């Protein structure tokens, strides 16, 4: 292939990809209120679209490079941190790295991102703070692109945090609603827990490499990490577990936070409080995939830590199944999709856990297409019905034909019906899992079975969703029925574009059984350490074909059951629910996990927050009754009254500081003669100190 | 500046320290003893006559704390400043030969600055002695 664009030019343009959305965010954020709404829309969309165009150019530039292993461009922007000491130096650059992996993500983020920006123009019409909305959305795009394009771990961490911040801002976008503001807070806090894991992992990785290389390590760039990662093997294990495993697990904690895996998934369903396009963009297509991306990016670390990989695979598989079961009973359309997202992310982790990294990315891409489509379709429905509750919907097929048709494409894709994109990628994951070599014998097969079961559940709950929303008659009342309408074309156009992608997206990663090249796999090859399942397996085509048929069978069964339950015999679900009342209850209440977390973590935390709030309030009160507090302290020292220790310690500390502060204020008499005495005393004191010590 | 003395030729000072301390203590003791006795033994009866300042037998008229006019201090300070500057001019004059024209230029500049200062004082009303000085 001839080179359309000089790689050198492309290299110098890399910074534009993240910085264009940033510029959009700055313009909309600072001037947005004064700009006409149309211009705000234009700035918001155009900045992302330009970034998309540059990404496309970057993609072709990479393709134009003949030698696959040379397919990377690094643009160093400036020296960020440089520390020199006698043994060596440590330097970090703000540099962007374009390689097959990052360009794939870039295309998804900017491409899907642009469509969602466009959709938002219609969806947010009439909202009074659209400038703020588009500024946040652009800022998010910037952070995500920074995360993806970063050439070193620390810069990636900056993007990682930025993504979390934007998610918080957007979930709580309608912050006047207390519940929504709290959902934003929840997402932020849960993400913090994960980020802590990431950060500790980063520290541990750096420290180990620093020690292992006798202080000659000079940075955290990915290329450098990749070369020096074998050093981890020589480091002495902690608690009998190798350091590579520790580090891998810590990074995975970060990934479970950002990508909503067990046990840190709880924020994602609540994140649906944000505007629907945000759910589509952030909580389905891009931000939540950051964890998968990070693990694939660090694949060289994970391949030397098989135990960590196994944990990733198991957590992924279990999350996929677990979230799918919850999705069965939810009535909020966005919640079903949220749990489905968690479930699909579980698939991706399952894939990377069994070392099928390119397959994980493949599913990430197809999932971005069809899940964005599902959310946008749901948004279109919500826009028309003004409710999230599926029980108030039904029969929308005839009112919203475009939405219905595009939604069906995504539905078939996620349910795993060939030849839709979701089928291709999901089946490849199952095949890779079946063939995997996990440290525990039979684990691969078990995870495969779990994945297969999840596929059936997915087909079932998606059928339920489609049936409740689009089939049958409208249940929302006559008044609402009059206002039902198809969404404007600015909203349906993105739906159609995504629908096309959902249908044909599978061609980039065709299974080996078709004897056609797996484009994505070959493209990503140079970035990955070990070739995924389909790469090095001696192909047993009959087996692959058989498994494929089984999974089609399972999916069809799921769909049939769904059809039977919710279209053919609508009385059945009630009966089944009555029969298994306990189980239904547990599922509907999402295994009570929120309640458990509430009791275990949130409430004590809130108590602490309230205490530190009091830190501020009781300035005067506290000063007066210190004596009574002393008595109280004695009493709880003896009686260990509930939590008063924390109470007392926080208050006591605040008290002490305040008292000292007050006492110090008395020292400042304002009389110059006192100050001059203080000089004499000061010199004398210093003398005494100096002679004594 | 170049060193004036070479080496550490200071005499040791600790031998004097002890006697200094004894002396200091004795002085302190004596003074405090005297003050103590004066306040203990002395009669303490005060009346207006006693509290009046002693002016060699003449009954004082008015307060002893006269207020000098502020310009007095101003002029005193101006004199001080300009007087001190003369020292520089003397030192230039002494080595006039070896300093040459460069030195002449420098001292001219110096005098110019002084003149500027004088001008400033003048314009600001610093030399005006009396109630009619400028208010702004």
């Amino acid at each position, binding site marked *: 292939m001839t080179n359309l664009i000089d790689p050198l030019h492309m290299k110098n343009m890399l910074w534009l990809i993240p910085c264009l959305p940033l510029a959009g965010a700055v313009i909309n954020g600072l001037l947005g209120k004064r700009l006409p709404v149309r211009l705000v829309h234009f700035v918001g969309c155009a900045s992302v679209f330009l970034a998309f165009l540059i990404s496309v150019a970057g993609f072709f530039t990479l393709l134009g490079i003949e030698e696959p292993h040379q397919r990377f461009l690094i643009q160093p922007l*400036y*020296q*960020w*941190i*440089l520390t*020199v000491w*006698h043994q060596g130096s440590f330097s970090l650059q*703000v540099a962007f790295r374009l390689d097959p992996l990052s360009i794939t993500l870039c295309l998804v983020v900017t491409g899907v991102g642009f469509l969602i920006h466009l959709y938002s123009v219609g969806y947010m019409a009439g909202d009074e703070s659209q400038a703020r909305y588009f500024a946040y959305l652009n800022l998010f795009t910037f952070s995500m692109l920074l995360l993806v394009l970063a050439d070193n771990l620390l810069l990636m961490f900056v993007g990682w945090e930025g993504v979390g911040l934007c998610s918080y801002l957007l979930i709580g976008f309608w912050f006047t609603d207390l519940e929504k503001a709290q959902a934003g807070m929840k997402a932020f806090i849960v993400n913090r827990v994960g980020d802590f894991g990431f950060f500790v992992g980063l520290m541990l990785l750096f420290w180990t490499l620093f020690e292992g290389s006798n202080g000659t390590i000079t940075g955290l760039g990915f290329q450098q990490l990749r070369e020096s990662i074998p050093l981890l093997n020589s480091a002495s294990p902690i608690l009998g577990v190798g350091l590579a495993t520790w580090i891998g697990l810590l990074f995975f904690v970060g990934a479970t936070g950002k990508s909503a895996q067990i046990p840190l998934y709880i924020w994602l369903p609540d994140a649906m409080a944000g505007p629907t396009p945000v759910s589509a963009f952030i909580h389905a297509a891009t931000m939540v995939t950051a964890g998968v991306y990070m693990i694939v990016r660090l694949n060289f670390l994970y391949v030397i830590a098989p135990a960590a990989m196994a944990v990733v695979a198991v957590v992924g598989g279990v999350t996929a199944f677990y979230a799918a079961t919850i999705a069965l009973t939810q009535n909020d359309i966005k919640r079903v999709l949220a749990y489905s997202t968690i479930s699909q992310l579980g698939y991706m982790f399952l894939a990377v856990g069994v070392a099928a990294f390119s397959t994980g990315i493949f599913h990430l891409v197809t999932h971005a297409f069809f899940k964005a489509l599902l959310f946008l379709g749901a948004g279109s429905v919500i826009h028309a019905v003004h409710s999230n509750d599926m029980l108030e919907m039904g029969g929308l097929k005839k009112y919203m034909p475009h939405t219905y048709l595009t939604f069906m494409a995504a539905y078939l894709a996620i349910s795993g019906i060939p030849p839709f994109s979701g089928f291709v990628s999901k089946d490849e994951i199952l095949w890779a899992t079946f063939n995997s070599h996990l440290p525990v014998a039979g684990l691969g097969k078990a995870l495969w079975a779990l994945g297969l079961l999840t596929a059936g559940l997915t087909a079932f709950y998606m059928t339920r969703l489609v049936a409740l929303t689009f089939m049958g008659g409208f249940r929302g009342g006559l008044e609402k029925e009059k206002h039902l309408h198809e969404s404007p074309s600015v909203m349906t156009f993105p739906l159609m574009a995504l629908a096309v992608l959902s249908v044909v997206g599978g061609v980039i990663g065709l299974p080996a059984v078709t004897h056609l090249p797996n484009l994505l796999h070959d493209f990503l090859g140079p970035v990955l350490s070990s070739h995924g399942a389909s790469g090095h397996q001696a192909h047993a085509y009959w087996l692959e074909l058989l498994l494929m048929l089984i999974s089609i069978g399972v999916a069809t069964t799921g769909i049939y059951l769904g059809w039977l339950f919710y279209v053919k015999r609508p009385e059945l679900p009630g009966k089944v629910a009555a029969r298994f009342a306990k189980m239904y209850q547990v599922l509907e209440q999402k295994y009570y996990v929120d309640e458990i977390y509430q009791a275990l973590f949130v409430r004590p935390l809130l108590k602490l927050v309230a205490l530190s709030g009091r830190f501020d309030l009781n300035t005067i009160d506290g000063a007066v009754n210190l004596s009574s507090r002393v008595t109280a302290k004695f009493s709880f020292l003896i009686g260990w009254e509930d939590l008063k220790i924390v109470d007392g310690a926080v208050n006591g500390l605040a008290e002490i*500081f*305040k008292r*000292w*502060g*007050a006492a*110090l*204020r008395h*020292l*400042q008499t*304002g009389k*110059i003669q*006192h*100050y*001059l005495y*203080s*000089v004499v*005393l*000061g*010199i004398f*004191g*210093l*003398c005494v*100190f*100096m*002679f004594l*010590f | *500046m*170049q*060193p*004036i*003395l*070479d080496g*550490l030729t*200071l005499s*040791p*000072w*600790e031998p004097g320290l002890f006697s200094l301390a004894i002396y200091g203590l004795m002085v302190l003791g004596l003074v405090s003893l005297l003050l103590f006795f004066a306040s203990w033994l002395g009669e303490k009866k005060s009346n207006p006559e006693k509290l009046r300042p002693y002016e060699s037998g003449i009954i004082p008229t008015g307060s002893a704390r006269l207020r000098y006019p502020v310009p007095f201090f101003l002029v005193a300070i101006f004199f001080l400043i300009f007087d001190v500057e003369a020292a520089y001019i003397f030192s230039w004059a002494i*080595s006039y030969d*070896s*300093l040459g024209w*460069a*030195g002449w230029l420098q001292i001219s500049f110096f005098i110019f*600055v002084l003149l*500027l200062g004088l*001008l*400033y004082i003048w*314009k*600001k009303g610093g030399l005006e002695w009396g109630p009619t000085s400028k208010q*702004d």
Partner: protein
Amino acid sequence: MIPENFIQSNLQGISFIGPELILTLAILLILLVGVLLPYWRHRILFTILAVAGLAGSVLPLWKLPQPAPDLTYLSNLFVWDWLTFLSKPFFAVVGVLTILLTQVTGEIDNSEYSECTILVLAVTMGMMLLVASTDLLMIYLAFETMGILSYLLVGIRARDERSGEAALKYVLYGAFTSGTMLFGFSLLFGLAGSTDLLAISQKVAFASQHPQDRLLLIVAILFFLAGLLFKTASFPFHFWCPDVYEGAPTPITAFLSVGPKAAGFVLFIRLFYPLFATGHDATIYEAVSGLDWPSILALVSAITMTLGNLAAIHQNNLKRLLAYSSIAHAGYLLMGIVSLSDLGLRSVVFYLVVYLFMNVGAFAVVAMVASAGGSEEIDSYRGLGARAPYVCVAMAIFLFSLIGLPPFAGFVGKVYLFAAVIYKKIYWLAVVAALNTVISLYYYLRIVKAMFLEKPTETIQIQVPLSSRVLLLALLVPTLGLGIYWQPLARVVSGMF
């Protein structure tokens, strides 16, 4: 008779004090204009002249030879090293910012404006001389040039009682401490027989072997400390600071909190490093044996920051609060001096540069709010965020930077300071400093909270003119920029030591 070559070398050395000479000319020009046009009401002329003078003062730096640690001039009175070279533009920037701030806030009356600019220029000149001096006498002269003129600056509002009171306190305190320092100088001169720092340092290394001379050295060090700790507003010589900062016009307060303070720290480096520390493989120093001044300074640093932060908690007047904050920052900066390494010295200089922008920024906001109809009390900041968002966001950024939160410049500066002490393994000091940072969070955030979360108690509309906004922007850019891209500054600083 004076040798010919002595005169020649002195005349040549004059080119090295080019910045000071240009400042002098600017001062004379402003003086002349101010006298000849007494009814001139346009402050802008003086501002332009002063800024031009300050800008012009850095021009000669490009013409002068490459700095070197042993390049002395004017009979060894001054040294031309990187610290000198880079401090001069620093002080010029301090001066420019002060004058612009005075211009935009209008806190100084027209009748006093020309004098104010003259004094700012003169203090700047004093600071420039001070950082270059390597001779005790010259140091004292420059120190007093800076000191006495800044007393005048504090009292520039002649008809304002608070300003006068502050000036008087400053004079008395300053005279007392600088007299003490002069006594220290005389002791050292008596010991070494020279006022040249290089000559003294050789004598000191020798003298510290003898117990009797060591005693003298200790007293000398303590007396030095009185002057230096006074200038940098550190415990136990900080008492003047809140009163003076509160009484002085706000732009002058901003000036004092960065200019003389920075000069004090540079003087710390100038005095203590050649005199009482010996270089050790060029990156680490050791205190001269028997003189344990680092440990005493470490204690002073810990007490200073704790005291500053604790006392700031109760302040409701923002200028007073920032005065205590500036005391606390003196404590942080002392950490760098204590650490006895190049890393420490670099971090001090780095932090001073960062501190210049964020602290002047915070004072600038205080001055602007006060001159736009508010007051310096925290009450007039309640709910200000909604009425003057630009100024309040700027204030929040400056305060966050003062706390030391990423991604602002203050964070990077603090990281370097902490790294310096930890590198030297003075862990307890690092812990105290970290705790102090937490305490400081409380009172800085109180302002942020008042601005954005509380309901306004007064309804005065705050109108901030465009010129003020531009000045704030000029301060914001480095506060933010150095937090993200600090490498150029770090490189410049690491070239200094």
